[in-house]
């Protein structure tokens, strides 16, 4: 992600009051991760598996914290079982949309093909962020959606921001 866009993601998280994040670092969201690690506003929990990451988020939510997981969309596939089982324990997912229209990586095409169908199959509301000027508002809307649905929600950061 471009540095200016990453700064806006961090600002969006602050405005939305999300100060706890589990992270499995990845290429497109690396700049966001770097900013989060350097900002004392955030408590970061690095994880080795996205399924564990969403479970830790669910536990934090049970304890009253606003939290999210930062991961690649390939991690959605890893986390599907935990997300499906932990119904009603809302987890907010922030994902780079690898395999998006125009992504030159051949290895990412399976991520592009499966991400939205999986979110739909899991009944997880989501939005794709494509412009800098919508980053902050869409992070805030994601929290409102998560609260309204009382369930998981997802934001996909598209190739235009990279």
């Amino acid at each position, binding site marked *: 992600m471009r540095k200016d866009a990453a700064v806006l993601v961090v600002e969006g998280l602050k405005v939305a009051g999300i100060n706890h994040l589990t992270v499995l670092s990845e290429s497109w969201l690396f700049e966001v991760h770097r900013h989060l690690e350097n900002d004392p506003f955030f408590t970061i929990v690095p*994880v080795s598996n996205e*399924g564990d990451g969403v*479970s*830790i988020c669910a536990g934090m939510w*049970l*304890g*009253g914290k606003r939290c999210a997981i930062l991961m690649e969309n390939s991690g959605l596939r890893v986390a599907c079982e935990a997300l499906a089982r*932990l119904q009603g324990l809302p987890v907010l997912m922030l994902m780079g949309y690898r395999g998006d229209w125009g992504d030159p990586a051949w290895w990412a095409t399976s991520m592009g093909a499966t991400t939205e169908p999986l979110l739909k199959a899991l009944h997880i509301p989501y939005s794709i962020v494509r412009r800098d000027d919508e980053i902050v508002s869409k992070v805030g809307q994601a929290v409102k959606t998560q609260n*309204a649905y009382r369930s998981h929600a997802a934001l996909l950061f598209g190739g235009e921001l990279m």
Partner: protein
Amino acid sequence: MNRLDCLKVLKELMPDDTLVVVTLGVTTDEWYDLGHRDATMYLPAMGTITPVSLGLALALPHRRVVALDSDGSLLLSLGSLTVVGSQAPKNLGVIVFDNGCYESIGGAPTATATGTDLAMVARGCGIKDSASVSDDGAFRAAAKRALEEPGPIFVVARIKRSIAKVKPKTTDIFEDKYRFVRYVEKTEGIEILSPAGRGRRDPNDWNAATRGG
């Protein structure tokens, strides 16, 4: 040593405000049958008990959190122990009931029946206070430590295959969630479930905006 006797010891030693996350299957029914506690969250989700407990412990560092996990469940998310080790929350106790099998679905062996030592795995993940116990006295001492001493504390309770004759739990994850969350809200003085909307229109808006006003 069997699981129901261990659960009875935990029930006896556990303060009312200890937050407990319970694994699925027969363990859920046995814990439920021993008596209702608002401070219990039941998770019908293999592999999530220890990481959810970790998240809860990190969210509420002043509250004791105890995971009641099982070998089959923990083996599905063994990597979560690396995060317990790296975060090292002082308020977390993890108790794993290890009977070496997937007991609730017929008893096929788990990897702990063929050599995997969960206490050694936990130590290898950086959880220094990690031990296995296999008799009632040792379990009581280990349980007391998991409930009181600075954590993270990891206890493997090596139990026999044994399913107690208890009534199955009748609540689902949603009822369990709302009960647990309302309990946390009440005891912590916080709001977890947001209201549908903040602020309402003035009931005189209609009259003020029409000829009726």
